[in-house]
């Protein structure tokens, strides 16, 4: 049945919306604050300190592990503890681990800085028994430092860009076909409709990205290669439409549009696929930042992310088809009203 694929995209997006809203975030540690005289307070997110039967805190410097003392559960997401560290440590910067039978092992890197201690990387360390708790949690999204609850935006922001790539690719192929033909062909309108949707998806991607940046990096815009590349690529595709509107003759419009579409696609490849690999970026997976798959050991994100990608691609294709059909009908009406064909 023709068109049976069309509702699949929106249905997938509905599934994604429900999952994104309802799936809880896994537990994690946000910050560790020194309260003086060796006492510290650690703030968690989504943790179950009060419900757990056993909660232990250790700090680690290199291979040395030092257990905390007097661990007090001040709330379901707040712990207080005291550290009695030796005078000499392998490193002044210590990682913090909170081990609980419900949350498993939670890590906060470089949580404690022992500024008054001496450093000796070869210092002898005592063996410490550390419990290995497996988390007893339901289905959840992984906790990532700094990203926290905004990880839900992964299901919108990234699939929008994937979908834009697909639509831009369709426009690119259609433009090549248009160049190879004489006069105006169906490929011209296909390229135009695909580029229109690509611009819309690009703008949506920029908005979701900007909102995400505000919460994770503290500002609406940063000088990041991928952000800059995304903005410029969207501007280039917008320029394609401006160029088309500047030309009256259909054959010339089709040809110039096809040429510029080729430039825009090459620009997309350079700015979004090539240059980010060679530069420092705040984006996950680039410039030394861990990618999302580094933490996604139970694939909880993939169960929602991949359907989101497919959902947006199918929805984008449906939008492109609608715009294409509107253009064909309009052209047919114009021909008919002018008494042509």
């Amino acid at each position, binding site marked *: 049945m023709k068109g049976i694929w069309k509702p699949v995209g*929106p249905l997938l997006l509905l599934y994604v919306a429900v999952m994104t809203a309802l799936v809880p975030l896994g537990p994690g540690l946000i910050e560790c604050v020194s309260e003086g005289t060796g006492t510290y307070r650690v703030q968690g997110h989504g943790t179950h300190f009060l419900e757990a039967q056993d909660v232990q805190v250790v700090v680690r410097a290199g291979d040395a592990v030092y257990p905390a003392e007097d661990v007090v559960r001040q709330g379901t997401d707040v712990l207080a503890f005291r550290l009695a560290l030796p005078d000499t440590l392998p490193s002044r910067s210590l990682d913090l681990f909170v081990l609980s039978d419900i949350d498993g092992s939670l890590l906060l890197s470089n949580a404690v800085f022992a500024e008054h201690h001496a450093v000796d990387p070869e210092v002898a360390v005592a063996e410490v028994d550390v419990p290995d708790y497996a988390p007893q949690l339901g289905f959840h999204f992984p906790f990532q430092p700094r990203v926290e*609850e905004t990880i839900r935006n992964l299901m919108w922001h990234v699939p929008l860009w994937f979908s834009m790539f697909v639509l831009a690719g369709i426009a690119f192929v259609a433009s090549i076909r248009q160049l190879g033909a004489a006069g105006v062909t169906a490929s011209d309108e296909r390229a135009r409709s695909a580029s229109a949707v690509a611009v819309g998806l690009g703008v949506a991607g920029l908005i979701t990205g900007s909102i995400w940046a505000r919460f994770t990096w503290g500002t609406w815009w940063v000088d990041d290669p991928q952000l800059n590349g995304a903005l410029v690529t969207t501007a280039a595709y917008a320029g394609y439409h401006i160029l088309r509107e500047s030309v009256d003759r259909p054959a010339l419009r089709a040809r110039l549009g096809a040429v510029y579409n080729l430039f825009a696609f090459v620009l997309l490849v350079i700015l979004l696929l090539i240059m980010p690999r060679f530069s420092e970026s705040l984006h996950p997976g680039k410039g030394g930042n861990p990618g999302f798959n580094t933490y996604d050991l139970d694939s909880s994100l993939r169960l929602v992310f991949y359907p989101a990608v497919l959902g947006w691609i199918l929805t984008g294709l449906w939008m492109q088809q609608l715009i294409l059909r509107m253009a064909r009908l309009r052209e047919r009406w114009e021909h008919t009203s002018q008494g042509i064909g």
Partner: protein
Amino acid sequence: MLALSESVFLGSGKAGVVLAVAGVVLIGLLAWMLWAERRLTRLERKINPPSNRP
């Protein structure tokens, strides 16, 4: 499976704004697409009725 009560996202109250905005945008978009699909199909059938198709 979905522990609603454990979700900090929903418990914080900020989720409501996010969901409302996202919901309005998505539902509006899909509603337009459905309306356009039905309108276009009707017009296409009018221009080229099924009996005329080879």
